[in-house]
């Protein structure tokens, strides 16, 4: 039973070592693309077989001493993480950037292990370890394209911001530990609820929240995001945008719902009766993210930076759900994070194709896509409109779940009401920039005028991933209950 609870992590970690060995032992003389292809196939087969063999009909398992929670729902989330990781690995074949293929794959898989740990843990130290495993791998992955100055710059920026925020978070955790004497989230919550909350515990929560805000790239801790997205190779950028964000939100939802629930550290974001605590902090961060993310996205001309800034805005919407602080709200945030992750993977894949096709990721390069590849243009529209929240796509229900959970929360209804109102206004601004790209892609442009031959230089496997992502967004948009019950594990 215990082994079953950590099986996904063990499989993935073992696969990372296997990939490293295989590459070093036999593949060093092969060409880069052949190595990538073979390793992709190995990873897909291994994870696919593991998924099929995995028995998912079991009662939730808990290892109380480690604060480890595993249930079919959590396992599904880990399966999604594995799938998104595979997607970003296959996407790395779109460009050539390294001789160290085995290391690249091993690091990505290790980052995925870190992400999976975050979904299960309720232990502060384990959570921090998982976050560091994820982050440290990602710093290296961001800077992996050694011939490109942008990549190195992005890696350094990500690392410096990340290092400081990790220190802040650890400091917060240690303050929390000092105040309560506990490391397990349920026990932390019990101690916090038992007596009057010491100011030091509130400080601890706030410091840790700042660290989280960095991981989920919420404003004003978002400054690394556009550079990392732009500088990283498509595969790494897709991983940061999808897996890393999904796992960070999974952990954050866990921490706030299980550990920080007591009113003493939660605080209040109502306009009249605001009180310090993580709710007030994240209410501020959500507002800042929604405003800054949307306004900055409005002004971008590069597609990757555009995705990054709109991602900041989406982090803001997800925080609105988090602030509601109910069980339903936690699931709605997960729902949002999953649909966002899928859409982001698709969008980054689009950016890779765009760069290969036009030589830069300028948004204006989308002009005429409908003529060049109907399939890709339609998928692009699905991703963009899902992010914009147009039914019947999954992104619409994500927003719907989050906002209705926020409105239904009984604790501080007026505290989040103004946030929901602000989000609704902001999503109108967002529609503007999403529609602009949709229109550009829809517009026919003469190929001769653009000086290009017909046909999109996209690998069929990239197309397949894009198609699968788009199909999932449509499917879960038409049947939103399916994903929710998957996440609830019922």
């Amino acid at each position, binding site marked *: 039973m215990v082994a079953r609870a950590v099986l996904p992590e063990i499989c993935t970690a073992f696969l990372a070592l296997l990939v490293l060995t295989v590459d070093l032992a036999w593949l060093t003389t092969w060409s880069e693309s052949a190595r990538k292809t073979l390793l992709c196939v190995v990873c897909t087969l291994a994870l696919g077989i593991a998924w099929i063999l995995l028995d998912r009909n079991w009662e939730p398992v808990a290892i109380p001493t480690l604060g480890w929670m595993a249930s079919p729902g959590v396992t599904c989330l880990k399966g999604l993480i594995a799938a998104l990781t595979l997607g970003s690995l296959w996407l790395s074949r779109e460009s050539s950037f390294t001789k160290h293929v085995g290391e690249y794959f091993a690091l990505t898989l290790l980052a995925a292990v870190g992400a999976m740990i975050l979904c299960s843990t309720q232990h502060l130290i384990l959570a921090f370890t998982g976050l560091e495993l994820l982050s440290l791998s990602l710093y290296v992955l961001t800077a992996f394209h050694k011939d490109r100055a942008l990549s190195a710059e992005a890696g350094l920026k990500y690392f410096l911001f990340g290092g400081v925020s990790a220190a802040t978070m650890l400091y917060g955790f240690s303050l929390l530990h000092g105040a309560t004497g506990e490391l397990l989230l349920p026990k932390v919550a019990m101690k916090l609820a038992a007596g009057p909350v010491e100011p030091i515990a509130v400080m601890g929560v706030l410091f840790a929240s700042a660290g989280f805000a960095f991981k989920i790239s919420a404003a004003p801790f978002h400054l690394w995001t556009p550079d990392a997205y732009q500088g990283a190779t498509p595969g790494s950028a897709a991983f940061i945008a999808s897996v890393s964000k999904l796992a960070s939100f999974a952990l954050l939802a866990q921490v706030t719902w299980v550990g920080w629930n007591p009113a003493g550290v939660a605080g209040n974001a109502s306009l009249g009766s605001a009180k310090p605590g993580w709710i007030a902090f994240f209410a501020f961060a959500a507002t800042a993210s929604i405003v800054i993310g949307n306004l900055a996205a409005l002004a971008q001309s590069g597609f990757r930076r555009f995705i990054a800034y709109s991602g900041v805005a989406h982090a803001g919407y997800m925080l609105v759900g988090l602030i509601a602080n109910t069980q339903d709200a936690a699931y709605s945030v997960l729902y949002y994070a999953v649909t966002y992750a899928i859409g982001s993977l698709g969008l980054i894949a689009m950016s890779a194709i765009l760069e290969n096709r036009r030589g830069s990721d300028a948004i204006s390069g989308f002009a005429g896509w*409908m003529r060049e590849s109907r399939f890709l243009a339609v998928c692009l529209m699905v991703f963009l*409109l899902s992010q914009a929240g*147009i*039914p*019947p796509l999954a992104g*619409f*229900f994500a927003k719907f779940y989050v*906002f*209705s959970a926020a*409105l*239904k929360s009984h604790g501080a209804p007026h505290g989040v009401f103004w946030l*929901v*109102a602000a989000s*609704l*206004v902001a*999503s*109108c601004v967002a*529609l*503007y920039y999403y*529609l*602009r790209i*949709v*229109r550009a892609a*829809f*517009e*026919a442009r003469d190929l001769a005028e653009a000086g290009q031959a017909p046909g999109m230089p996209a690998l069929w496997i990239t197309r397949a991933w894009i198609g699968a992502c788009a199909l999932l967004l449509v499917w879960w948009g038409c049947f*939103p*209950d399916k994903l*929710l019950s998957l996440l609830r594990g019922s």
Partner: protein
Amino acid sequence: MTPTWTLVICLLGAILQQFMPRTEPKFARATALLTAFLSLAAAFSGVVNGMDPGVFTTLTRAPWVPGLGIEFHLAADGITHCMLVLTGIAAVAGVLFSWNVEHRVRDFFSLYFLLLTGCFGVFLSADLFLLFVFYELAIVPKYLLIAHWGSKNREHGAMKLALYSFVGSALVFAGILACAWASGVGSFSLQELGKHAFPPDFQRWVFPLLFVGFAVLAGMFPFHTWAPTGHSAAPTAASMLLAGVVMKLGAYGALRAGVALMPQGAAMWQMPLGMLAAIGIVHGAWVALTQRDIKYIIGYSSVSHMGFALLGLLSLSSAGLSGAVLQMFSHGIIGGLLFAIAGRMIYDRTHTRELAELEGLNLQKLMPFAAVSFVLAGFASMGMPGFSGFAAEAHVLAGAWKSFPSLAILSGVGIVLGAAFTLRVVHRTFYAAGAGEVEPSPASTKEKQAHGEALVISIPERLGAMGLIAVALAVGLWPRLLLDWIVPALESPLFENLRKSGGLQ
């Protein structure tokens, strides 16, 4: 066949278009026309099957998101049938008037039928959430239709329309969530919500969210400015659908979700919102009187005419409400016809919409058919007895007189102004004697000589125009054709709340 088929037909039609041969647009057109006729037949099926107009008859019902009490629930009563028939007629007419679309015909009709799916869906929805989903579904197709196939300022007009609709639907979204959650009903079903008596304080703040949110799309002053820009930028078929059907989505939503569910809220806001509606009537007509662009004139006239529909809704009286629905139908037909003549017959042939330039062209001689149909459409639009507009506006004014006499008088002024701008545009477009007043630009003269043949009004256009005029006449001469469907619907349990609070007298 039941009206549910409208959705299936339009959706399949949209998909089918993508499989038409690219080089032979005639197949795409023929398929489009067939799809439109089938959807019209499906829209009529409820009437033909003799469904009871006074009962909200369920057509399709299946759980959709059980966790949240959302159902895929389609139902129809008399008002629904009127709107469905209107949409079907507009669909057929729209295809007939876009016979000359040459550029990416398949994509054009795909989006056209997607937009129609959204419209039919809104009218058929018996679940507020489903209604909202269909309402949003219409945003993207209409945006792309205008942004890609439109004329002058199309990008601006398309984006403005999309953003206005989206802002409106954000308000509606907040209102719907409030209805379902804050009230504790826990369901989005119109029937369930109709039984619930919302507390007055709740209605005070939720009613304006719902009503104004929907009314943005119905062109309510001061949120009407999308209408002239959007309409004038749109390609003919899209502007016909915009004026003919999409604006009605707004009024229909305001009726179903606003007035019917929250009559007390409506009573509280009756005066201020009624004033906005009346201002819209007069303002729209006044501005139309001074415009130089023929499509802008019709765009502003739509604002003015839809103001009557909103005024009728807000009067909360039986006559006012039935007049409002009648006006929605009537304006759908007449507005569509006006845009068809202006966009397809006049603009596509002369390549100008400026009154000053049209004056010099002596169009009445060149296009007698267009001239006659424009005169008839103008008569219908200004509310001549015998046309549908008269019956509708008379009902609305009778209803408004009971609730707010001063606004009824103000709206009467709007009718006079309406007659003035209609006569002006008809006169200056076709019958201006002073041909020498403004020199026609050389380009348009050359155009005229080069395309002398093209000035002949084609068969599809003739059929479309005659059909629309016939419908406007039929409803005008015998309004009971529609009223027999509308009035019983107002007696149904859906309007229970409204009757209890003293409305519908």
